[in-house]
């Protein structure tokens, strides 16, 4: 574990390093007789547009994804097709079985990716963010999340290219062009349906109730898990929450001191939110029915309080399938969108707080 001195040192050095004003940085020039050009387009531009991922963005895993997205993102602020795309490069921190094979991107690969993204017709401009800058941004963005600051080091964060995409250009084409290119870990579209602005609201807590055909063990379902404990299916379905259970949940919520207000979202309302959240995703909308939506209590919490108590109480209540802390989901989305990391909830917010 880190000692307080180590933490203080880290903070002080980061602050000192961050005082560098990148706008006045003089370009490098190569010695007496420079025989080759330095490609300064590669120089990291520190201006990172902070898009904040709210929803259970791509691959956050588990069958709860849909819940997450609906849960925290009732009315996403849409980026008007001009948002950035982030191309995260390989880092050692990525597990060995990944395309990166557990090694850092090489300089040649970085150069090749740089050249490649620049010649894509959809790309308007390109900025590079190195590991050190990523780490700085990371420490700034997650100042509120100590568990995360303790768990992630500079070497864990991949370097990335940030692409500004031309208005109206086919963003999927960019993803396709970059798929499988050596040195690229993943490509995240920061203007996708899943990523929205954080400004809009204080992240809420949602308590989803058990529905018909519930897969959650908390609803009495028996799950089929593979050797690694990943969800593979349902052996026996769970039971929907009864009216009595719903009443009890409501009474519990009314008695919780940290809850400022709460509303009940029925299936119809949940489906409307869902449609609003994914207006462009026809496949998803067509495959989802009103009756697929879970009912939920949406809680607005008092600001600046530890949410873990409320969440653990709700989780123990019969009829509650799962409890999603919007703050955690937001952090996980942000982590993926801006830093290319996919971490389990247990790491991002232990105890659900």
């Amino acid at each position, binding site marked *: 574990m880190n000692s307080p001195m180590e933490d203080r*040192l880290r903070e002080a050095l980061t602050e*000192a390093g961050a*005082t560098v*004003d990148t706008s006045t940085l003089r370009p490098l020039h190569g*010695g007496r007789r420079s025989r080759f050009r330095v490609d300064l387009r590669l*120089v990291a531009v520190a201006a990172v547009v902070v898009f904040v991922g709210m929803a259970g963005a791509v691959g956050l895993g588990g069958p709860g994804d849909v819940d997450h997205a609906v849960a925290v993102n009732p009315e996403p602020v849409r980026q008007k097709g001009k948002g950035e795309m982030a191309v995260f490069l390989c880092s050692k921190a990525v597990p060995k079985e990944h395309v990166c094979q557990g090694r850092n991107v090489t*300089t040649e690969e970085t150069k090749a990716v740089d050249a490649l993204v620049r010649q894509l017709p959809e790309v308007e401009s390109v900025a590079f963010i190195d590991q050190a800058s990523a780490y700085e941004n990371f420490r700034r963005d997650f100042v509120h999340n100590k568990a995360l600051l303790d768990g992630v080091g*500079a070497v864990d964060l991949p370097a990335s290219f940030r692409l500004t995409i031309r208005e109206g250009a086919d963003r999927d084409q960019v993803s396709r062009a970059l798929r499988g290119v050596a040195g690229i870990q993943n490509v995240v579209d920061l203007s996708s349906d899943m990523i929205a602005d954080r400004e809009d609201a204080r992240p809420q807590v949602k308590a989803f109730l058990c529905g018909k055909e519930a897969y959650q063990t908390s609803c009495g379902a028996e799950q089929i898990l593979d050797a690694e404990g990943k969800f593979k299916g349902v052996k026996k379905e769970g039971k929907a929450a009864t009216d009595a259970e719903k009443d009890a949940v409501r009474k519990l919520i009314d008695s919780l001191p940290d809850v400022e207000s709460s509303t009940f979202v029925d299936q119809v309302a949940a489906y409307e939110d869902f449609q609003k959240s994914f207006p462009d995703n026809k496949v998803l909308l067509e495959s989802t029915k009103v009756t697929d939506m879970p009912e939920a209590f949406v809680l607005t919490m008092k600001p600046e309080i530890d949410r873990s108590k409320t969440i653990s109480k709700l989780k123990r209540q019969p009829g509650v399938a799962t409890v999603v802390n919007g703050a955690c989901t937001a952090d996980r989305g942000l982590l993926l969108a801006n830093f290319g990391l996919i971490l389990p909830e247990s790491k991002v917010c232990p105890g659900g707080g």
Partner: protein
Amino acid sequence: VEVELLSRGKALMREQVDVAVIFAEHHVGLVRLALIMVGDQATAEDVVQEAFARTHAGRGRLRDPGRALVYVRSAVLNGRRSVLRRRATVFRRAVPYDPPVWSAESAAMVTEERRELLVALRKLPRRQREALTLRYYLGLADQEIAETMRISASTVRSTIARGLTALRRTLGEES
């Protein structure tokens, strides 16, 4: 023979470009590292520029392009000394030097406590200061620090331990 020369030339070119690209990619990061060592941005930029120019001059010695980042970081650490020496004698400059970010005259750092810590760090022996910076600013592992500073990994560990102890003593924190 011609073909062979050509491919050798190409290999050499690639190597040269490697160093240049490493510098370009990490320019801001290197300036930040240098700033932590010297205190102000103008000097920090000089240090990186100096290291960059030197790397060009000595590029024949760079055998392993894969370790270029280690190389340029250590060039930056080493470049610091010669730049500070030169700075004492050169007066004509376009960019004025600011006071170090951790000094009371500078408004760059807002937290008094952190400023004190950096002042205490300044007072440590060079090796401890460098090892602590590489560990706690760049988050490097023992082995990487060892390669950058050209000392052994066990020396890195003991140097960091000693540095932390000294800081705790100076700042009166219980360990």
